[in-house]
């Protein structure tokens, strides 16, 4: 059975992943997100990172443990900054990585998207013309909105 780690910040990012749940039916799935009332079902609760460099550094240790213990075959994220440490370790542990830029980004790039564009295996946007914000690797295959 395929092992998939799903990573998203709380709020809209997490709602987007929930909207896509049919894609991984029948797979062994784990969720990583920030603690909040709308993320109660998550398996790995990660302290909020935001724009804090120290918290970002700490989160790298947290995700090392998550990736090392779960050993996902695939890691999928709809953002935001929580995806940075997750995708970093996922690649080093040879997981296949897919980053889907948040649908709130219509004609611009998020900071997490910019940082992860070259790092992840596959990079998608949710609006056709937003591929221009990145480059040839960015693809459009539909969206949650």
């Amino acid at each position, binding site marked *: 059975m*395929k092992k*998939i780690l799903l990573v998203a910040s*709380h*709020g*809209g*990012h*997490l*709602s*987007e992943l*929930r*909207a*896509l749940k*049919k*894609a*991984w039916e029948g*797979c062994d799935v784990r969720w990583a997100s920030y603690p*909040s*009332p*709308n993320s*109660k079902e998550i398996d790995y609760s990660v302290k*909020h990172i*935001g*724009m804090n460099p120290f918290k970002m550094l700490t989160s790298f240790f947290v995700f090392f443990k998550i990736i090392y213990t779960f050993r996902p075959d*695939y890691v*999928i994220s709809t953002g935001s900054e929580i995806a940075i440490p997750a995708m970093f370790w996922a690649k080093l542990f040879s997981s296949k990585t*897919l980053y*889907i830029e*948040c*649908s*709130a*980004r*219509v*004609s*611009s790039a*998020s900071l997490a998207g910019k940082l992860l564009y070259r790092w992840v295996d*596959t990079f*998608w946007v*949710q*609006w056709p013309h937003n591929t221009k914000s990145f480059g040839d690797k960015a693809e459009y*295959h*539909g*969206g*949650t*909105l």
Partner: protein
Amino acid sequence: MRVFITVGTHNQGFEYLLDKTAVLTSRHQLVIQSGHSSTLVKGAFQQQSWYSPDEMSHNISEADRVISHLGCGIAREVQVLNTPTLFFCRSRQRGEHFDNHQLELKEALTSRQGLWFYEDGDDIENILNNMGSEIPQSPTNTDQLIKAIKDWLTS
């Protein structure tokens, strides 16, 4: 009219939205999710910082109108649940977000049926009454994305 007001989970407040909608308390039943905002709306039927996903869906379904920040999660939910919605965009200049990307989303959704967008100075009561019978429709591109992920997982 039952109106559900939500500002989302973003870690900056959205007092502007709550201040502008407070005038509705005398004529409508307001259920409010106020997140990190500090404003307490006097006369609201119910106000909580957070609701669970099930409670959010219930509040949206039960409402005649939704008034919301323009987050991607709620923008999808109100279309799936077919509830007419008035959106406010968070502004970097007012300290409500770190950039103005909600304005981008407004441009992308502006022609969608049943979705309305507040401009500074608009009469909210008037907008609520004029929203009429236009019902938002569920987004149509999601199945395409689900199929693409399935294909990616098997490639």
